[in-house]
């Protein structure tokens, strides 16, 4: 008897979620990273296979290029304004050298990358802040790049998606960096006035001047689980107010409970959700409509 023959195939779409292959664990001396939450040591390959998230749910920090890999459609990211770079307007001692070494070690020119991209086919403007470039601090170049991105999005009627991570304004640029708060906020306002959609995803940590400006100005504000989000540091607040802070203060979960964040979204669900939100809120007449 030959094989039974089946005439049709169900052709179901592949279920989403989880790893698509085995984390390579062939090397027993593979470096491991200890999770600060569950204290287990996880082999790096396994960690990366799970989007740099510990099985217990702890989200490790993630550089911009790694984030692009899981977030946007392959080959769709087109970087813009990469020629805008920080100068040393105050002649701050050692700043120029620090910029140079940071550029070499992080392989990025600035603490933010901007561009256009497609997420599951939804076109948008995208900025991603780099935690490994002076902890994503906001200098003149960061402000300028983001402002220009919003202006570009306005001209082309595109939605903006931004992933924030920042220690705040860059102290080496003094008042110039503080001014970026007003400048970026103005650009966001003009973008919003035109009826365009802006989505932010707060990642660990989003603090200082970035929180006080464009990070919290999104129409929809998402956050990664466990992310620290705040303006001044918790210790500073405690010392100033001389009051004990509530448990979980300045975490994404605390902010969600108090209405500052719309939802907490683990990395594995971000791409799908962002695409859906972009589709729902795409501007009429824009490229993504």
């Amino acid at each position: 008897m030959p094989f039974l023959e089946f005439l049709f195939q169900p052709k179901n779409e592949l279920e989403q979620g989880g790893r698509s292959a085995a984390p390579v664990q062939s090397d027993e001396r593979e470096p491991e990273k200890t999770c600060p939450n569950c204290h287990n040591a996880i082999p790096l390959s396994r960690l990366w296979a799970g989007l740099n998230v510990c099985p217990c749910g702890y989200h490790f920090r993630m550089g911009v290029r790694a984030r692009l890999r899981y977030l946007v459609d392959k080959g769709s990211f087109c970087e813009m304004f990469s020629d805008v770079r920080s100068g040393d307007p105050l002649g701050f001692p050692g700043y120029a050298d620090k910029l140079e070494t940071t550029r070499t070690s992080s392989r990025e020119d600035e603490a933010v990358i901007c561009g256009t991209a497609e997420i599951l086919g939804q076109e948008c403007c995208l900025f991603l802040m780099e935690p490994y470039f002076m902890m994503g601090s906001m200098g003149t170049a960061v402000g300028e790049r983001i402002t220009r991105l919003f202006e570009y999005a306005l001209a082309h009627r595109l939605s903006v998606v931004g992933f924030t991570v920042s220690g705040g304004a860059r102290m080496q640029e003094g008042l110039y960096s503080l001014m970026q708060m007003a400048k970026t906020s103005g650009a966001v306002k003009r973008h919003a006035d035109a009826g365009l959609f802006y989505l932010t995803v707060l990642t660990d940590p989003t603090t200082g001047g970035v929180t006080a400006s464009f990070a919290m100005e999104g129409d929809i504000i998402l956050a990664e689980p466990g992310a620290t989000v705040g303006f001044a540091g918790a210790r500073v607040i405690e010392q100033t107010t001389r009051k004990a802070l509530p448990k979980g203060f300045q975490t994404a979960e605390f902010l969600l409970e108090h209405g500052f964040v719309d939802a907490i979204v683990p990395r594995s669900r971000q791409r799908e959700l962002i695409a859906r939100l972009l589709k729902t809120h795409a501007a009429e007449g824009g490229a993504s409509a």
Partner: protein
Amino acid sequence: MFSKILIANRGEIAVRIIRACKEMGIATVAVYSEADRDALHAALADESYCIGPAAAEDSYLCGERILSAALISGAQAIHPGYGFLSENARFARECIRNGIVFIGPDPELMERLGDKTEMKKLVEGTSLRPIPGTGVLSGLEEALEKAEKLGYPLMLKARSGGGGRGIRLLQSAEELRQTWSLAVAECASAFGDGALYLEKYVWPARHIEMQILADEGGNVVCLGERDCSVQRRHQKLIEESPSPGVSPAQRAALTQGVTEAVKKIGYTGVGTMEFLLDKAGDFWFMEMNVRLQVEHPVTEMLTMLDLVKWQIRTAAGVPLRFTQEQIVMAGSAMECRINALAPGKLGMLHVPGGHFVRFDTYLVPGVEVSPYYDPLIGKLIVYARSREEAVRKLKAALCELVIEGIPTNIGEQLRILSGEPFMSGNYDLTLMEGR
């Protein structure tokens, strides 16, 4: 999610897994022996590879050949089903070394849970009570001394035994003296390990097992118990859930104990913890099965959860989407195992249907039931709102099942179901004694 999975098994379980994969949009790779050339699982899969002659040692137990098939076909994961290589830590390790996910627990944990002495250490400190017993015995002197402390009757067991093999019942010290050297020699030749230990003989008792499901993040849910007390020579015949012999209070305590133990062990995937429930109402922990069980559909029918899909999901690192509180277990589910009593060629096949009647099988007209493998040819599972209704449904469905050309145990199953002990729910492992 994995886009391609190889199923390292045959028969109804291979078919069951392929079906789950098809629903999930996962491409499937089947392996088959020469005797299974026309088998349903090989026809149903997207790709099939012949891995050797009929004898299991040369095909389904041959890890290297199965791995080669996985590597050639580009499968990202291997589902071992039950039996064959499902509890083989060496094979699991070999899969991982080749960059292929073994859908099952971590090999190291598998080894520790397979070793009964180690397993007892693992559950120490939880509310689970292992059957009182000794560690591995050094010799007859130690055995006699410890046996005296535990009190007869006792079971003399092989550390590497399982599935009812390597077990001896002892009534007195005299019997222990007589059987000791024979038992050591036998176990050494059968399992390659002559290590023996003693265990208290819990009898009469019910065989109760708890189904668990756990993800990588340490979330554990317990999906209730299954009563597998209808057994002959340690081979299960009928399984049901919930057990008529377990009270809601006992169930709640056991659920909590099992969940706690699984969290402590750090287990991932589906697993089963086996207990003996004695006349006094005490649960004695026997062992943990680190794989999918034959009788998993009973739990599936009761909880409406697809265990195979969840096993694949947890292996891919997907977290559980429900909590213990969200699991609803109402009604009654039962399974009858249909075994072939002799090899033969299937003529006509008529499968019962209807509301909540499920028949998991690999039978298609014309297929040969070969003597090389397990005699299980199908599993008839029903679900109903009450236990009484489930028994009625199971009996009606059994009568409708026609398997021509192969002698089966359908008649015997009907007699068990109609007997007073089963109907009343008041039965234990002694039910099949002398039958």
